[in-house]
């Protein structure tokens, strides 16, 4: 069943059309890899799905609802979470606060009188433990290395209750030993029924993790074939 449906989607930036009449369907509980040259429109597609930029034509449909012109927070509340191409953590906040800030009450007034603090704290600790950053929970995020920042972003996604996860080069800059952990996390999220779309240049990782592949500027979702022993 398609959880994301993209119909004739186009985006024009001053004459350049990184996304041009793209249509595809992404099923629930799958991992989709996006590959393509620099500037080919991979990040633009993520921006369009997450509402960071609005489409010139076409539609993004999530769970049967048209999301065009919806604000990023509305799309996020529909269950979409994302990371960005460059790491974007809250530098002058602690590692723990980086997680708590994104998972707690979304309502302004409820956030003033947060009732389930212990519940959110537990979720945040669990996510930090999974990516190996729990011992740094009270450290300022600005002190983290590049790879650790990536992991903190993954932890934010883990702690959130998103069902659709968009990751922009999640393995970039991550220590080779941690790549295995991130790959395992993606697989775990898939097993939980979450839908993952990620941009990656390492074709080996795409082949290892993905069910489908979108090669931009190609317009069709291709199944990833693995040798029987790998699947």
């Amino acid at each position: 069943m398609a959880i994301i449906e993209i119909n004739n989607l186009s985006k024009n930036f001053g004459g350049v059309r990184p996304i041009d009449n793209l249509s595809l369907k992404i099923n629930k509980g799958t991992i989709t890899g996006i590959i393509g040259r620099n500037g080919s429109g991979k990040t633009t597609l993520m921006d369009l799905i997450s509402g960071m930029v609005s489409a010139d034509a076409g539609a993004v449909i999530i769970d049967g609802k048209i999301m065009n012109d919806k604000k990023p927070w509305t799309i996020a509340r529909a269950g979409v979470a994302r990371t960005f191409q460059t790491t974007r953590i809250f530098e002058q906040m602690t590692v723990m606060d980086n997680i708590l800030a994104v998972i707690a009450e979304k309502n302004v007034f409820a956030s003033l009188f947060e009732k389930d603090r212990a519940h959110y704290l537990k979720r945040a600790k669990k996510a930090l433990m999974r990516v190996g950053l729990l011992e740094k929970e009270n450290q300022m995020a600005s002190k983290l290395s590049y790879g650790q920042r990536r992991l903190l972003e993954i932890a934010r996604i883990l702690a959130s209750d998103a069902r659709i996860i968009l990751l922009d080069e999640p393995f970039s800059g991550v220590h080779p030993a941690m790549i295995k952990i991130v790959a395992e996390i993606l697989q775990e999220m898939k097993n939980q029924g979450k839908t993952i779309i990620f941009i990656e240049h390492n074709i080996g990782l795409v082949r290892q993790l993905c069910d489908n592949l979108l090669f931009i500027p190609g317009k069709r979702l291709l199944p990833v074939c693995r040798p029987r022993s790998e699947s």
Partner: protein
Amino acid sequence: MADYFIHLATIIGVWAILAVSLELVVGYAGLPSLAQIAFCGIGAYTVAVLSTVCGANFFVSILAAMLAAGVASFLIGIVLNKFRGDYYALGSLGFNVIIFSVFLNWDEVTNGPLGISGIFRPEFFGIDFYGGISFLILILLVLGIVFVISQFIVNSSFGRVLKAIREDEEVIQAFGYNTSFFKSVIFIISAAMAGAAGGLFASYYTFIDPTSFRMMQSVFVLAIIILGGLANLYGAIAGSAFLIILPEILRFSGFPTDTAAQMQQLVYGLILVLLMLFRPQGLIGEYKL
């Protein structure tokens, strides 16, 4: 001499209320507002008019001052929320200029450049706050309330979202937070606190005119919180004390009478520049611009 120190402490208290209120907006939410003195002025004029024209009770006037400043901030906040960074600062500065012009030219209500005199000192259930020390106690009481409310806000989940907005608004939006609401609410709370500070200011001096609410005064409050240290409520109070006491100390610096004023300004400016050079995070700041 005791009266002098009480006066100084009272002034520090008023500025500290203003500074704590601005800290919420600038230090925590990262909104470079230069409108704080406008809200203070709205509060001051509300108390002045209600006191002299309607003979309203001081505490009712203060509540009205907070309401008036809050409503004004809600309206200007709708516009300012469309801006970010330098444009936000310029927009808020523009608001300040407009409000100053209103104070200066709306003669029927504000009495124009002549200002309003004869503003009542507070009285509450038979207890008057006419004397210096009793007014200081009132100021400290209000500062305490403002501080506790602010502390509660910044330690809540709401406060964490404000900091996240300051750090990267787009990211926190991508996790489902409608940041406009958060920014509007903190802007209104902050303006209401500034309105209360304005009301106390008017009541303390028993006279106000538009010159007290010039644009430069907004820059002064901003300087207080930057010097005291951003994202630290104690920093706002420390900054107020520092910037009020420093020129007083320089008064007794022994410069020759004919150049004393200029030299005091020079040393004052130099100390501020040196402080920013060697302690950019301010006296006790947690956040660097």
